[in-house]
């Protein structure tokens, strides 16, 4: 296999990626690069390639998990999907509309209503100066939904019940709630405009385990109740295993593997995924096989000076000579199982 073939974009996988139902979100060759400026003249000396050439689809009604170490670009990726970070290249197509270059005015009736986000930090994600009622009322007013205040109040109360909070908590301020309650408020806020897609960016990482379980169950119940599609970004493999239908693994701004949950956790193909899964602590029951622990050497390389070829080659235990020069593309090696690795060329 020569390198020109390897450098080819996603076309050949495109046909294989076809799924019967039109996906709710299509991401093609998405790149988010941040310029690195230095010196008095603020010259651009390089780029942080936070998200580098990522393509994937999200099916309606599914939960796509995105896992990766901190700093691998998963949050930036999530934020760029709703244009909180501007994409440098590529396209994002939501419900058939290309939203990559839309103005804020065009985004408002579409994306600002139909895609919402649940944030990581339940303390930082609520405005401390706004009561719960105000926080939930504001988006309804901004979009002119529910004619009058009484109807809006009804909607807010209903929503609070849905996420498991008392409707009487409307007049309370964020500091009066616990972390888990705050995250419920964050979820209520994400639901208030009746979205189709919710991006949960480390939505449970800041909570302790018992609360995590409650919030995850709540998210699952809501998904069923409101036909929601989730993109669930997390560094926690066990949480993602529980909630996701399909899982994508990111490393240094690239999607290295994407497969059904059952497939990915049982039979990971990419050496990085294997190493990642082997690091998850497990409780051995009698007779159960344990996975061999793969310890990666070295640190994640800087995303400013990315390694040539495969970004993982500096730490890969099964590195081959041409991994240093040729960039692997994400290819479907088994039905529904995509991997970007030269081992499977």
């Amino acid at each position, binding site marked *: 296999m020569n390198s020109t073939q390897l450098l080819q974009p996603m076309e050949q996988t495109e046909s294989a990626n076809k799924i019967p139902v039109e996906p709710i979100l299509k991401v093609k060759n998405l790149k988010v690069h941040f310029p690195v400026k230095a010196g008095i003249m603020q010259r651009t000396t390089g780029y942080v390639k936070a998200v580098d050439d990522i393509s994937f689809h999200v099916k309606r009604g599914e939960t796509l998990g995105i896992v990766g170490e901190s700093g691998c670009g998963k949050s930036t990726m999530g934020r760029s999907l709703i244009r909180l970070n501007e994409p440098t290249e590529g396209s994002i197509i939501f419900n058939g509309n290309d939203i990559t270059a839309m103005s804020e005015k065009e985004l408002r009736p579409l994306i600002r209503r139909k895609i919402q*986000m649940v944030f990581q930090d339940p303390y930082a994600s609520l405005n401390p100066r706004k009561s719960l009622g105000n926080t939930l009322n504001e988006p309804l007013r901004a979009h002119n939904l529910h004619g009058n205040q009484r109807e809006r109040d009804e909607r807010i109360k209903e929503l609070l019940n849905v996420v498991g909070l008392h409707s009487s908590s409307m007049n309370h*301020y964020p500091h009066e709630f616990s972390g888990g309650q705050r995250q419920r408020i964050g979820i209520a806020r994400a639901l*208030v405009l009746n979205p189709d897609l919710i991006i949960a960016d480390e939505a449970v990482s800041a909570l302790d385990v018992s609360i995590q379980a409650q919030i995850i169950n709540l998210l699952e119940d809501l998904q069923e109740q409101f036909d929601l599609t989730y993109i669930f970004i997390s560094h926690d493999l066990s949480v993602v295993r529980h909630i996701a239908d399909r899982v994508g693994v990111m490393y240094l701004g690239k999607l290295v593997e994407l497969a059904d949950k059952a497939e990915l956790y049982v039979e990971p193909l990419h050496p990085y995924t294997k190493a990642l899964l082997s690091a998850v602590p*497990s409780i051995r029951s009698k007779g159960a096989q344990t996975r061999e622990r793969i310890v990666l050497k070295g640190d994640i390389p800087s995303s400013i000076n990315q390694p040539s070829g495969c970004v993982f080659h500096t730490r890969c235990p099964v590195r081959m000579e041409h991994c240093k020069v040729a960039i692997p593309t994400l290819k479907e090696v088994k039905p529904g199982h995509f991997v970007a690795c030269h081992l499977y060329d």
Partner: protein
Amino acid sequence: MTLPNQVEFTNRPTLLEDHQLQPHDSIWRVMLRKYMSNKLAVIGAILLFIIIGSALFAPWLAPQDPSKQVLLDKLSPPGDKYILGADNLGRDTLSRLLYGARVSLLVGFASVAGSIFIGTVIGAVAGYYGGKLDAVLMRFVDAVISFPSLFLLITLVTIFEPSLMTLIAVFAIFGWTGTARLVRGEFLSLRSAEFVLAARTLGIRNSRIIFSHILSNAMGPIIVSATLGIGGVILAEAALSYLGLGIQPPIPSWGNMLQSAQNPQVMLGAWWYPLFPGFMILITVLAFNFVGDGLRDAFDPKIND
């Protein structure tokens, strides 16, 4: 692979957790308690209350018309007829102090209101939008800061008639740079706060995000800098008036009362004459600084009681 967390997941808790809210104090009550625990700040607030009150009610409190001259009584010592003595033209010092407080406080409040407004708008725009706009606005701030402001003030006041309005305008135009930098810093850090990102995700308009979300969270430092700023302006006004470039006689201001006392014969013979206006300036500026410090601690979320 067995995962430790799985045990938790299978055990589904009821959706409605027990969430009876604790009877918490409101943010304002917590801040008030923090403020009240600072004795100097409380003293400052009481002093300011008295000073502002007596300025407001000067016409009722003043024993005499502040510009009534009784030349025979010039430089009378404090006594029954003139509680705080009389000046070199035989005017009642107490009455002039009360009316002078109105001028000094008016200059302080009005020019700080102006400079806070300019500084907040410029700082908010620079901090929220960032990028080139921020760079241009901040270089402009640097340029304004690097003007030798006292000399410029003197020049401007001599070009334009030194009136109350000119003074207020001049102080407002040169006093906003600190506020602009402060507000820019606040906006720079708050614009990437998750609650601001959430507001953007929900399609809240920029103007509303700036004013309703970010500014309300940046109010603390702005109020503190305004409070400290008023003290500074009162001092500056006194300095200009002392140089004869501020409020012009016969309107009394604490600064020009000091000026008319700078004659050595007066200073040696009638110590009470410069003492009282000087004392008032000192007390007022101190009171504003105490209140400013108290507010800063009260607004600071890091210092929890």
